[in-house]
C-alpha cells in the first residue's frame, strides 16, 4: 500500500538532497529518496539538485528521463508491474498482459481513471521459474493467471 503522494516543502527537498551529499555519486540515491517521499520527482526539486551537485538542468533532465523508474508525475495509488520478458512469454504472459490492459482500458504506463492503479511493463522480476510473474507494489506474484490478475486488480481498487 503506497501512501498518497504528499507534496514536499522547499525545506524538505533541501533536507533530502543534503542527506545524500556525502555519497560518491549521490544523484540516483537523491532521486530515489525524493520519489519515495512524494511519488515522483517534483519540478521544484530540480533547481536545488542542480545547485547542490553543480550540474545543468539539461544533465538532470537527461538522468531523470533515462531511467524507467523515475516519474515526473505521481503514479496511481498502486503500481502493478507485469513481466513482458521471455520466460513469462513462454508461459502466456503476453496474452495475460493484453487481457489485463484491455479490461482496464489502458495502455502500458496508463493509470485507471479513479487513480487506483498504474500498470507498468517490467523486464524480468527474477521469478522466471514460476512464470508468468507480476508485482503489486513490492509484493511478488507468481504463476499469474486471469483469476489472479483479477484478484490483484480488485485488491488495488479497480
Amino acid at each position, binding site marked *: 500500500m503506497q501512501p498518497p503522494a504528499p507534496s514536499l516543502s522547499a525545506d524538505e527537498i533541501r533536507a533530502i538532497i543534503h542527506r545524500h551529499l556525502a555519497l560518491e555519486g549521490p544523484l540516483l540515491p537523491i532521486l530515489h529518496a525524493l520519489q519515495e517521499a512524494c511519488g515522483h520527482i517534483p519540478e521544484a526539486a530540480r533547481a536545488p539538485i542542480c545547485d547542490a551537485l553543480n550540474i545543468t538542468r539539461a544533465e538532470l533532465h537527461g538522468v531523470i528521463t533515462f531511467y524507467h523508474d523515475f516519474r515526473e508525475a505521481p503514479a496511481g495509488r498502486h503500481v502493478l508491474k507485469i513481466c513482458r520478458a*521471455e520466460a513469462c512469454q513462454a508461459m502466456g504472459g503476453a496474452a495475460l498482459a493484453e487481457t489485463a490492459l484491455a479490461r482496464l482500458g489502458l495502455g502500458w504506463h496508463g493509470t485507471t481513471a479513479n487513480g487506483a492503479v498504474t500498470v507498468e511493463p517490467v523486464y524480468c522480476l527474477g521469478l522466471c*521459474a*514460476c512464470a508468468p510473474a507480476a508485482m503489486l507494489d513490492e509484493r511478488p506474484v507468481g504463476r499469474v493467471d486471469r483469476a489472479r490478475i483479477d484478484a490483484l486488480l480488485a485488491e488495488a481498487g479497480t
Partner: protein
Amino acid sequence: MRIWVPGDSAARALGADEVAEALAAEARARGIEARIVRNGSRGMIWLEPLVEVEIDGVRHGYGPAVPADAAAILSGDAPCALGPVEALGWMRRQTRLTFARVGVIDPLSLAEYEAHGGLSGLRRALAMDGAAVIDEVSASGLRGRGGAGFPTGIKWKTVYDAPGARKYIVCNADEGDSGTFADRMLMEGDPFSLIEGMAIAAHAVGASKGYVYLRSEYPDAIRVMGRAVEIAREAGILGADALGPGRGFDIEIRKGAGAYVCGEETSLLNSLEGKRGIVRAKPPLPALEGFMGRPTVVNNVISLATVPVIMEKGAAHYAGFGLGRSKGTVTLQIAGNVKRGGLFETAFGMTLGEAVNDLGGGSATGRPVKAVQVGGPLGAYMPVSMFDTPLGYEEFDAAGGLIGHAGLVVFDDTADMLGMARFAMEFCAIESCGKCTPCRIGAVRGVETIDRIREGDPSALPLLADLCETMKDGSLCALGGFTPFPVMSAVRHFPDEFATAKEAAE
C-alpha cells in the same frame, strides 16, 4: 520445533507468507513452541512454498504447501510430504559450492553462516598477501559468471597492478536477463557470502570501498542485503579495521532504476556515478579507470560469492570440477515453460538436453519442447536438435550461442519464433542507451524489417541478416552486439517460420 518457510521472493510469490502465518497460528493454537525461520529457497521452485520441519535432527520437506496444510504438516501426515529434503534427487545430484548455504541457513544469522563454513575463506585470505590471493583465484579457473566469462584472477591482477590510492570493488547485481535469478536467490538466501567475497576481493587488490549495484526490481534482495551489511558492520567484518588494523573496507548497497543496459559494466559505473547509464568506450578498462576514474573490480554476484569457497577449500578443489576451460560449477537456472523449474548447481559439462528434459522434466504444458533460449535476452534460441551441446563457455560459443548467466528459458511448440525475434529487437530498442547508432537505430529498423518479413516482403530477410551483421560488428556493447544472437538463431533454426509468411504472400 524448528520450521523453515522460505522468504525467497519466488516462494513468497507462490504464497509462502500465508503458509508461514498459518503454521504460526496452528502452532500457537496447539501450544507448540515453534521457531519459524524464513530461509532462502533450495531452488526447487516447482515445490515452493517448500516447508521444512526438523524431525529427529533431519529436515523433512512438505511442498508445494498451502495454508490449509498447516495442521497436517505439524502432525507430520501432510499429503505433500516429500521426506528428507537432502535426499531428494534434485538435491543429491548437485554440487553445491556457491549455493551450499542457500536454503539451509537463516540468511541474516551470522552465527549460522559461520557454523556452515562462512568467514573461513576470508580468514585464510587475510593471512595471505594480496598477490597470493589473486594467484589462488587465478588457479581456481574462476571466470566471470555474469555472462562474459572473463577470468576473474586476471581482472583482479590488473586492478592490483594499477596505481591509485583509492580502489573499488563493484558488484554487478543488475541481473536483468530473463530466465536468470541466481543472483537474486543468493542475495536473498546467503547475503554474507557476497559480502565475504567482496571483502576478499578488496584485500586482494587493495580496495577500500565496495558497492553493490542492485536492480530496483528486487526489493526483497535490497532489504536483505542492506540488513546484512549492517550486521557485518556491527560484527567488524566491514568497517574501519575490516581487513586488519587501519585497513578499512565498507560496502554500500545502491539501487538501480530500471535500466537493463546498466547490467553492462561501464553503463553501470556511469549510473553509480549519478549519470545516464550510457555505455563507455573501452579502453580504458574499468580495471584501470572505473568508478570515479579509479581502478575498479566489477564482478557479478555469483563470481564474488564463489570466491569464499575457493579460499576456504582451495583452488584445486574448485578447479577439480568442470569441463575444459570451464572450471568449477555453473548455477543453471531452468525457467519458462518447464515442469520443474529452479536453480541447479553442477559442474560444467552437463548437456543442454539433460538439463531441460532430465532435470526440468520437459515443458510445463506437456507439449513438445521447441526451443531453449540460453543466456538471457541476448542469447541464442537452441533447437532440440542441439540438445547434445555441453554446458560450457567454449562449447556454446562453438554452437553459435552463449552460456551467459546460465539461464535456460524453455519454450513449447506453440512458440512463435518470428515473434520472439521481433521481441528481441523491440527489447533492444526500448533498452538501448542510445550512444551508438547500430544499436539505437538498428534495433528500431530490426523491428520494422521483421514486420516486413511477417507481411511477406521477400527482400526483407537478407536485409535483416545484413542489419544483424552491422549490429554485431558495430555496436559498442553486448546489447546491440548480441541482440543478433536470438534473432539470427531463430532465423537459422526455424527458417520455415520466416519463409512461410513470404510464400503465403507470393
